């Protein structure tokens, strides 16, 4: 299932400058794995011990995945997955 992933500026150094890319996957975890296959250095930036680092937020169509099933959250064909730093605001 093809989904669009939006990459924040802080990670574009490891995505060859790409701000947006398309990958296949049925869950957030699968989408991220597909992304890590493409950009090898990305994994360590946002994951630690197989989990997302605590200051990384991931959204599926604007919804924080912690309101869903975390990395198991399903992504529908054509939806948008956004990775963002968590330390903004307040």
């Amino acid at each position, binding site marked *: 299932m093809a989904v669009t992933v*939006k990459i*924040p*500026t*802080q*990670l574009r*150094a490891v995505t060859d400058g790409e*701000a947006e890319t398309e990958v296949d996957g049925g869950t957030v975890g699968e989408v991220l794995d597909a992304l890590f296959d493409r950009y090898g250095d990305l994994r360590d*930036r*946002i994951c*630690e011990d197989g989990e997302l*680092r*605590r*200051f*990384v*937020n991931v*959204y599926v169509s*604007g919804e*924080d995945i*912690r*309101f869903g099933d975390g990395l198991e959250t399903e992504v529908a064909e054509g939806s948008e997955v*956004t990775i*963002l*730093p*968590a*330390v*903004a*605001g*307040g």
Partner: protein
Amino acid sequence: MAIESLRCKECRTEYPLDARYVCEQCFGPLEVAYDYSDLDVAEVRRKIQAGPRSIWRYSDFLPFVSAPRGSLTTGTTPLVRADRLAQHLGLGELYIKNDAANPTHSFKDRVVSVALAKAIELGFEVVACASTGNLANAVAAHAAHAGLESYVFIPANLEEQKVLATGIYGTNLVAVNGNYDDVNRLCTEISGEHDWAFVNVNLRPYYAEGSKTLAYEIAEQLAFTLPDRVVAPIASGSLFTKIGRGFAEWLELGLLNGDLPTFNGAQAQGCSPVAQAYADGRDVCKPVRPDTIAKSLAIGNPADGPYALDLARSTGGGVDAVTDDEIRAGVRLLAQTTGIFTETAGGVTIATLRKLAGRGDIGADERVVAVITGEGLKTLDVARDTFERWEIEPSLDDFESERADRVPAGAAR
């Protein structure tokens, strides 16, 4: 020059002092690092006491090479001894730090003064923010004063008073159909695409430093001594943790002696991710969908949640949550015992103070400071229908007969 670099709070990687807020290695938050090794404590204290009556008297502890000038006069707000409230709650020495007495009537003037001075220093022409209301007021006003273009993003359901008190300054006011966390996500995305100074996104490390001045002022107003306990609201957790940081810096330097105060965080039950994590013994917060009258604290995804939990736990304090009815009662109690009218966030703080006092958590000999972060005129709905007014004709007889009906016999003549 004391300011050194930006440093990741998680992995300690250092970065130059430009507009950035995230560690590229681990996504942790960046914080300003200083080198105080050359500082002469007696000299610094003299300099503070001879400084301007604003937050710039603490400029040695703010992220600038030379002290910024101008700006709206922020800070040096009253620390009010609250004996009647203390008596009501069965407490000893109680003070209200009334930060409603700032140019746009909330503590946000502190963080915005620092962020805008930094934005100007870094050469930005546009400033912006994601706001729950108070920050909107402050960014719009300080940008107008500085002659900078501004964009202010707010949740569409914000209190009318806060919307009006933002729009008047001539900002680009963007109401987003969503809650604060949606606004914040949007602004995080926008900040990557536009070369703007988002005060609480890409300038957040500098912005957050402004809240340390609350600690400095409290300490200076107490003749360079510490309170035993601080009760303050938690939204993102930035204010709460930076008050702790301010005291800690002065303790390390020897400007203050003793121990860090006990820190009690205050949240509304309708948006209490930090209080829930505290109660569950967790280190991280699960996001929530806010539903509370304390809209200035309605952040369901608090950026500094883990650090707020650390501070509360390491100082023997805690984080409590109070209901909307307790918040309304807190606003009334503060008004009727101190003459200070606070917005709903202050009601959260006072209701939490009341809860702590009721539980017996506060010793009778403790010196307590409750931090009131905003003005009651911004959330007037809290006052509506909470009292009756007398309606009379302009006649002495009418007044006396109305009074006889309402005031018990034997009251002061």
